[in-house]
């Protein structure tokens, strides 16, 4: 059986990408392939990722998180991967959570497993918590799916989910769109607690409150767009 694929969308993550890749490679009993999707970075993200010995796909223009994940999904489908894990490039996730989430997918016969930061007792920074709660509400209002962490970047998908999920969002609104696709395709969803690592760097990289209205508008457009 083919190894799971860890998919890391990255934009200007030269400072962190090497340590993120190494953390996955050095995790005990974790036998996976890694694919970085460089989303038109203007720094050395591509070169550093390539030197780490992993597969790197490169967007010639920056298209956004959603587009990078969609490229990774396309690559995974072309290479017949049975399990794909999305993993943030900013060092927010623990590589040691990957195996547990994959096991949860298999044990629960789930199609999608979401790593939820809010299921963990560790407190989230207030602003990040607020953005998350607003996003959870928007996801529920627009797509009828309730989740404790709609913006989680640590997710596991099986082959069925990969084949059925059609991503149209370009940027960070993709996190909510994934739940829409889960609902539309009646996929089995399981949430597992994960332990996030909050640093000044990773908090700087994530969703911003000032972008909330833009993301919400994009999700509304998504519902009416023709393609």
């Amino acid at each position, binding site marked *: 059986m083919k190894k799971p694929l860890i998919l890391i969308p990255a934009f200007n993550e030269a400072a962190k990408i090497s340590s993120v890749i190494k953390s996955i490679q050095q995790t005990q009993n974790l036998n996976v392939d890694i694919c970085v*999707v460089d989303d*038109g970075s203007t720094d050395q993200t*591509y*070169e550093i990722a*390539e*030197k780490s010995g992993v*597969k*790197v*796909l*490169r*967007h*010639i*223009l920056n*298209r*956004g998180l959603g*587009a990078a994940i*969609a*490229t990774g999904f*396309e*690559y995974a489908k*072309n290479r017949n991967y049975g399990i794909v894990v999305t993993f943030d490039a900013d060092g927010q996730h623990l590589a040691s959570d990957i195996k547990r989430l994959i096991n949860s997918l298999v044990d629960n016969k789930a199609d999608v497993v979401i790593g939820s930061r809010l299921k963990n007792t560790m407190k989230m920074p207030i602003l990040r918590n607020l953005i998350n709660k607003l996003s959870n509400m928007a996801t529920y209002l627009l797509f009828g799916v309730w989740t404790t962490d709609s913006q989680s970047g640590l997710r596991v998908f099986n082959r069925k989910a990969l084949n059925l999920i059609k991503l*149209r969002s*370009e940027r960070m609104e993709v996190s909510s769109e994934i739940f829409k696709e889960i609902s539309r395709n009646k996929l089995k969803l399981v949430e597992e607690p994960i332990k996030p690592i909050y640093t000044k760097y990773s908090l700087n990289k994530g969703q911003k409150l000032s972008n909330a209205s833009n993301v919400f508008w*994009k999700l509304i*457009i*998504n519902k*009416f*767009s*023709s*393609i």
Partner: protein
Amino acid sequence: MIIQILLSIFLIFAISRVVLQVKSARITWGSFLFWCGLFIFALFGVLDPRITTYVANILGIGRGADVVIYISIVLIFYMLFRLSIAIEDTRREISGLVRKIALRDDKKGIHKTTK
């Protein structure tokens, strides 16, 4: 009135541009009918304001000019919405193209770092 003459000249010019665009196949017949219809209706309204007053009376609005403004605002917002969707569709097409290039370059082994 001078404003009627100026607006009429502009609207006739606009209609001529729409005709040229459909002749060179840069807009569809559907778009041609919509824009021509809009500009011709506006031209009639400008040349004979009693038309807008008549419409205003039917709709229960005070003045013909108010009808024109209300309808214009609704039309503009609708067109802005349609434009937003068209822009998003274009963005998606660009991303699709960037994706194809990324996967094609991967197959061909392009972007390999030289050591």
